[in-house]
């Protein structure tokens, strides 16, 4: 499968590219009062209201981490919605894309698009740092570094079964 990679601090992360709709530079968004701190706000992209998740906060990183980043240089990874994914691949859509609303994840840096064989994906090691195991679909060893494949549904807090 093709994976779109990016970094978050020291962490090297990947998302299955089929789930990604587009990536753009972080821009001003509208905060939603009363929402969890990991929801940065809402963004208008061509008439669609996108809910932006701040991945750093979602992973529970403290503000100390935040201080090292410049928000303006971050990127929004906009995900496809369930119906969009289902149009392309019904099976993946139903299994791994339970979110119905347009959403985006805020990340630090963009990486390459990599082809990864499913066989190489391993369960996350117990000592994985910076990210809770529940958000990890699996890891891939890659150039001495570890690529963490995100379980986007878990990151968004959407139950795959509920959808």
């Amino acid at each position, binding site marked *: 499968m093709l994976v779109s990679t990016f970094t978050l601090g020291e962490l090297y992360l990947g998302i299955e590219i089929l789930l990604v709709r587009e990536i753009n530079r972080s821009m*001003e968004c509208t905060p939603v009062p009363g929402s969890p701190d990991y929801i940065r706000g809402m963004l208008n992209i061509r008439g669609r209201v996108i809910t932006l998740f701040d991945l750093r906060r979602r992973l529970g990183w403290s503000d100390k981490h935040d201080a090292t980043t410049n928000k303006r240089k971050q990127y929004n990874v906009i995900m496809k919605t369930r119906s969009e994914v289902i149009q392309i691949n019904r099976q993946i859509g139903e299994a791994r894309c339970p979110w119905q609303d347009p959403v985006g994840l805020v990340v630090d840096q963009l990486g390459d698009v990599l082809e990864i064989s499913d066989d190489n994906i391993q369960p996350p090691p117990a000592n994985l740092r910076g990210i809770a195991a529940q958000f990890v679909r699996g890891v891939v060893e890659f150039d001495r570094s570890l690529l963490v494949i995100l379980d986007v549904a878990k990151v968004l807090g959407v139950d795959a079964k509920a959808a």
Partner: protein
Amino acid sequence: MSEEDDELLGMFVQEAVEHLETIEPDLLTLEENGPDTERDIINRLFRGVHSIKGSAGFFGLTAISKLSHIMENLLGKVRDDPSVASAAVSDSLLAGLDKLQTMINDVSNSESVDASEQVAVIQALLNTLEGGSPPAPAAAKPPEPPPLPEETAPEESAPEEPPPEEAEAGPGETASEEGEPEALPEELEAGSGEAAPEEPEPGSQASNLPAVVTRGVDLRNLELFRQALITAVQHGQMFFVVTLNLPLEREDRKSHYAKIKALMESVGQVVATNPDISGDPDLTKVSLDTLEILMATVLEQDLLQTLLQVPADQISEVPIPPHLARAVPPPPPRAAVPPPPAAVAMPTPAPTPGALEMVAVAAGPALMEPSHPAIAAPHRPRLVKPSVRPAKSSPAKNTEAANSAAAKGAPSVEETLRVSVSLLDELINMAGELVLARNQLTRAAGEVTVHHPNIGPLVQNLDSITSRIQEKVMQARMQPVSVVFNKFPRIVRDLARKLGKKIDLELRGGDVDLDKSVIEHLSDPLTHMIRNVADHAIEEPETRIEIGKPEAGRVELAAYHENGMVNIALIDDGAGIDPNKIKLKAIEKGQITESQADAMSDEEALYLVFAPGLSMAKKVSDVSGRGVGMDVVRTNVEKLGGTVHLESKVGKGTRVVLKLPLTLAIIPAMIVSSGNQRFAIPEIGLVEIVRVAESDRSSQIETVGNAPVLRLRNMLLPLVNLADVLGIQKVVPVEESEIPDRRERLPDRRSPGKPKSRDLRMTGSRRPSMPEDRRENSDRRHPGSLVAYVMVLNVGGNEFGMVVDEVLDSEEIVVKPLPSFFKDNICFSATTILGDGTVSLIIDYAGVMEQANISFSNVERATRMDLDAERREALRDRQNIILLETDTGLLMGIVHSMVRRVEKISPNLLVTIGGLPYVRYDGKTFRAIYPDQVLGLQGTGLSVDPNADEDDNDLCMVVPNIPDIQAGLIFARIIDTREINIELDTRAITADGLFGSTLLDDRVITFPDVNRVFDLAGIMSPHPEPEFDGSGLRALVVDDTPFLRVLTATYLKGVGFEIDQAEDGQMALTMLKTGTYDLLVTDINMPLMDGFELASEVPTTMHSDIPMIATTPSISSELEEKCARAGFVACVPTIDKKRLLRVVSALQPANGF
């Protein structure tokens, strides 16, 4: 299951639901009319259930197919002999229908639904009904009436016989039986007689068809089967020739044929066979290995094929020749073209009414004849005169579309297309985007137009097209309210039965369209309301008879358009709501106190039914009475942006009206900012916007029981700060300590992106929705007057104030759903995209209120009811004035009610005629008056306005609210409008024509007597001031507004009266009881005791014949009448000095003073 199957299954469900929608009302009709039920309806029922059965079988949904099968059997019985349509039958069918609905709504689990009970009930009925008849249900042949046995028994049919004879035999027999006119068979005969020789159609028809076997009878020559043809045409049947492959073994042949025949007769009838086997029931003599069967059925070819399980090429439709069809209306013939059915609408000339009627009569008896699954005109609404209706109905095919259209009461043949809602939503979305882009383009085009003048019209064109697109797209989402209405006959029937009442429900306006989203949310509130009506409003039948009402309660549910909204009214002729009982109940529940109840009008009391937890049912039943009803109704309706109105008369009935917007997709909203963020506040429910300057804060906002409240006219309004509720920033408007905090935020609020606000140049009228009133300028001029805006909102009849920092704009916003991640947040209802492309949240005020935990019973009720003294105080405080500055820098305040309008005029409109200045404005010439010159007061020069536009030399002309005076006061500019407490100082500055002065923000404001100013300036009103000497007379002037009181007093003093003043009716009454007065001049609108109440109390004093004059800010003939009735000698506008004095002088002779 594959994707395609999924899709097909979806279609099945959709279709089945549509069938169910028709079946239900039809079953109710069946129940109501029993054996007299129209044939059409029974046939439609049969067909609907049959289609469900057929398709369910296709998908292997055995549970559905089993249940619908047995229902179909029972319906078959009814169709064969309507006299069996007992209450038990319709009950069992309705029960079956409910089960069927459950199964279809959750089709994937339908197999696990247990329908055995319903099946057993129906089976039991069937068993009783059958009593020895042959197993094939549709083949049952009751002995009576005996028309056309030929049709059902092909063995006996003799195709060679001349058809006319048959035609005569059939209807003739039954007609005589029923005593119908004899002319009928002739009519038919004539029709056929004409047709036959004219067109040798049969031959050409046959040659067009695939040649099969031509030996023996030509089954495709329908001329030969005229009788069957007549029946078929009347019943909307079609003819098919089915070619049957016969097994080689002769013994098998018989059973094979019998099986097929039974199948065929379950859905239609076998007309003839080729070769003719009437004398050969065992088919032993048939030498061929194929048998052609001509059958008539209502089924479509594909359905028939599914049923018979024969290859498609072995079934061919035999079109009914037009000339034959024409002779026999109503005519739903299948054209030669196979599906799509919508395309085959065959022109069928409407027969003359006379002929039609007779044929329709003929159809009556013919319909009695057994085993005809005829559907005839599926779009025919029930309970209409059968004799006329078919002529009007077009030959709509028995397609699903036509059928569902019929169910919705729309006899339209307009072509329709199924479009998924998500596609429509997307279209709406994009139309919204288009509007946004259009707005941006229009803005940008402003600059470009200078260089490219031809851009203008292009943009305008785009503008109008965009608006039209948006409108049409919105229309596409509209659905008729009958979608909701149609489920109520059933609900009412069930309720009436359960409660032992009789209720007639009448539906009107089912074709009124509403947005799908509104329709979807309408069902629950309406169901609640209907249940309420059935349960409490309609009396028991005995009671109704006793009190002289018809036994059956009448309930009307109507939809209609009014004022751009859709009204849905539920009217009953039941017991009505007794306001006193409601009050008692509310007191019992602790929702109001007794003193509140006493103060409450009956109308107010009625609205208590909307309070949560108040149930008027005497006992809790499973129908209603748990106190969750009307409050839910109101909440739901208000969520839709609608309102609920209630009228009721005890013993007469109740009328509840829901006023709903046509659509929810685009709403007008105010864009406000709070805590540095912008929000949209829907304008529905927004009552007014009150601006509170920092300097006025302490006087206008105070704390009652920990909660900040705003004094607004005669009530205290609970306040919430939007930013606080949302947890954005800590800003408490009441506490002075917060000021530094607010200052800090000031630069933020004036972010560079926003346009600099203009100075306020507008009429002095109260403009609650004045978005541009942003105040930076005046802020600077009057330090310390940081402002907040209070949005006065109405939620469920309770008002509260939401404090925001700024009011930015009023926009039509496109509502977009709130992402599901925020669904828990009750403060937001949806999102929208603002003109600049940023996303904004739409505030749900009910949620804000809930979040802020405002309890109206604590704050508002208490304050509203019991604070006489405070209210008096609060009222005294407020006076709406317009602040103006003359070009010499003199500040003047004019009470807003004295001003008709304020015009901004360009200096070049000023002309001098005969040495006097005039203004040409709006086609009229106004005499220009410089008030400072007239009063002999000059200021120290125009104050410097740092924000004033250099080029802005425009002047302000104040046109006073005095009739017949065409003159205006000229000022350099308008500074502000304020609601302040005027403490008029009548000593510091005195001049003729000046009421006095006051200090405001450290500047002296003078208050001119506008009437006197015009007098001094020599402007004479066309009517000279009446001469009057009031010396030695004493008048009591009553007005709650101190300023106006002073004004009236000044006028009267001017003609010699001695004046006493009172600030409300109560005070005046006390004074009238102790003092001696010759004249009473009172304001009408006052707190505590208004002018009318005062007038009614005056006779109890010693001044029972004192002349009374009413004053009012605005006068109307209605008000004048009311005043006259109340005993006032006249009603005059408060500031109209001349009119007041005229009235006073007219009193003189009559009253001797």
